[in-house]
């Protein structure tokens, strides 16, 4: 009885905030629904057949994978490197820890706005600096050139997110006993050996959690991208949740709200993110067995 009462608040919140909306979404998968009850019609498999033929959606899935891959490739090593450096208890490391964490507390839309000014072609801050020091002769189309824009988006998202993961790593490192490091020093290990033989293995539980958070986070990113490029130029940075957002709210390039179709794509996106997470967990488990 007592345990039931203690669990009740969590169960109620879970039911109201997670289970009910999930069922609600499921219901509209087979409907045309734009928020107007009079327009609601059962359309059977129409949304599903449209989804398989929707080149924009599948293109956005590919873009999401590309974006997530590049982001993870840079954000995790950078966060780890900064964590190791700031864990050296050097003077001012507390200050830099705060500075690197700062972007995490800035809202995504503000991050997008800031980088809009930095990456503008004609009057942007970055091009101004690059041209004034002679690195480039003509302005780079950071947000308009399809071959460059993904790099711009990655730079912004790494800047906005690495401080958070860095803090996880720093916290993980503080739990590693100083005795272990002392022993390694007595045995004559240098800094690189200490990192790969002591820090990294003992940090692996934290690393696994951080990687999982980073993977799911990267696949769900869209807010700052919406502000910075709105998925463009063309559909070059149109990640899947941005496409879904525009469908559900009737904004962006598709002016009619398609909540039913958007609900189906949300479920497909959840399946994709879930599958990636499961694959990651399997790989991580295999690595554990090997190590």
């Amino acid at each position, binding site marked *: 009885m007592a345990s039931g009462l203690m669990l009740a608040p969590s169960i109620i919140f879970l039911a109201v905030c997670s289970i009910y909306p999930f069922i609600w979404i499921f219901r509209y998968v087979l409907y045309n629904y734009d928020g*107007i*009850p009079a327009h609601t019609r059962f359309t059977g498999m129409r949304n599903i057949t449209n989804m398989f033929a929707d080149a924009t959606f599948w293109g956005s899935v590919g873009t999401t994978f590309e974006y997530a891959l590049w982001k993870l490739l840079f954000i995790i090593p950078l966060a780890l490197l900064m964590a190791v450096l700031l864990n050296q208890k050097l003077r001012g490391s507390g200050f830099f820890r705060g500075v690197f964490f700062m972007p995490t507390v800035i809202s995504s839309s503000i991050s997008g706005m800031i980088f809009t000014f930095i990456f503008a072609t*004609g*009057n942007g801050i970055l091009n101004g600096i690059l041209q004034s020091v002679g690195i480039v002769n003509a302005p780079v189309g950071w947000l308009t050139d399809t071959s460059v824009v993904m790099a711009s988006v990655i730079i912004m998202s790494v800047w906005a997110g690495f401080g958070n993961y860095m803090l996880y790593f720093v916290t993980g490192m503080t739990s590693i006993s100083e005795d272990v490091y002392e022993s390694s020093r007595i045995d004559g290990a240098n800094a690189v050996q200490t990192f790969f033989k002591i820090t990294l293995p003992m940090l692996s539980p934290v690393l696994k959690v951080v990687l999982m958070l980073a993977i799911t986070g990267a696949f769900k990113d869209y807010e700052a991208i919406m502000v910075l490029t709105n998925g463009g*130029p063309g*559909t070059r940075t149109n990640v899947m949740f941005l496409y879904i957002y525009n469908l559900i709210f009737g904004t962006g390039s598709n002016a009619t709200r398609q909540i039913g179709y958007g609900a189906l794509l949300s479920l497909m996106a959840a399946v994709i993110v879930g599958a990636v997470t499961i694959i990651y967990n399997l790989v991580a488990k295999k690595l554990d067995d090997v190590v």
Partner: protein
Amino acid sequence: MRKLSLALAAMMLLTVLFAAVPAMADKTVITYWSNDRHDETYMSAIVEKFNAEHDDIEINMVIMTDDFENSILLAIDGGNAPDIVGQSVTLKNMVDYEAVVDLAPYIAADEEYQKVNDPYNHKYEGLNSIGDAIYWVPSGQRSGVRIEYNKALLAASGFEGIPATLPEYIEMAKKITEDGKANDPITYGIGFTSSSPFERQLEMMAQVSGVFYYDYVNGKFDFSGYKPFLEAGRELVAVAYPDQQGVDNMRAMFAAGTFALWGNASQEAGVFTNQFPITDFEWGVAPVPSLDGEIKGALQVNPNKGYLMLSACKNKDAAWEVIKYFQSEEVLIGYMEGGFDLPITSYIDERIDKSKMGRMGDYSLLEYESVYPAVPSINLTGDNYRTVLWNAIMGYVDIDAAIEDLNTRYNAAYDEDISLGFVQRLVISDYDPLHPAAGTVTWLDK
């Protein structure tokens, strides 16, 4: 004695306050949501005047510029809907949601309103009316797109004005960009925004050349006619300012003399006078060129500044009084003379002092400007035509493939929506591209 005076003063103050509170409470508050920010100063002043002159009604004006329709629907669902909203909504959605009141009975009973606003001659099926019902009446209209140009940059390259044909227009943009390379900072022939760039110039050049995306005669979508405009767009983009930023950023750059040619409708009169005032050079306004110099189709204008009464309004008669006030002769003359909009009725047009309109006078309607019949809204999967066509101009997709994709997707979605009963097929068998609103509208079930 001093304490007694203070006590008496306090009692008088309290009496006044208590007397005032019931008076305020007796007023019926009518909340109006506008999504126009450009006329905020004028509208706030006339609201203040109304409130000062009326003991029975108080207008509470709220400006909501983002996600207007969604916000209204959410407010209705949440039970805190406003009483009156501006016309920037999809009428069919609002009617199907049973969210709006038919104003026809109020209009029929008010001769003064009819005289000033001429509602029966400004009844546009699907736009402000459905059948006999009238949901809003336009007070003004936004002109079709014009070319705003920097006279100094044109003159430096040997041009005096905007040519009548698109090929000449392209050559002009190329020449100005080429000449601008010698300037410090570099100047360009033309600039495009990232916000609906196709709509702001090339789509309107296609319109006056007789090309429209909906084939009214056969009741289907047809994007085939856009091919020469997409090819022209590629040439223009190649010599344009190398960045497509938001509208206001590009306006600011035009005002700073960064590029010579800009395309937008009559709202630019106020923009380049107040928001980004142009002081360093003279700027002109000209009609958009057509493909071969001949005008074969009407340029689209948009009736606007109308007011819808929401069904949730508890004091409909008071709300009508407010709408009547907003659309009264006195308010409308001040509004048009303030340069906020173009008059839509000859009654107001004949009564305004056009010398007070500022640059809005440059946007007076051309003889080939007209309202187009509203194209049915469909459940389209994927990007809309403006995005796809601009992607083709930018070279992200092949031009022929883009046109084929749009023809296929739009017509498949249209046919399916018709078969499911969501929409009816709009056919105007006697459609005239120069007079699009004059045809006989027929709605088919298949």
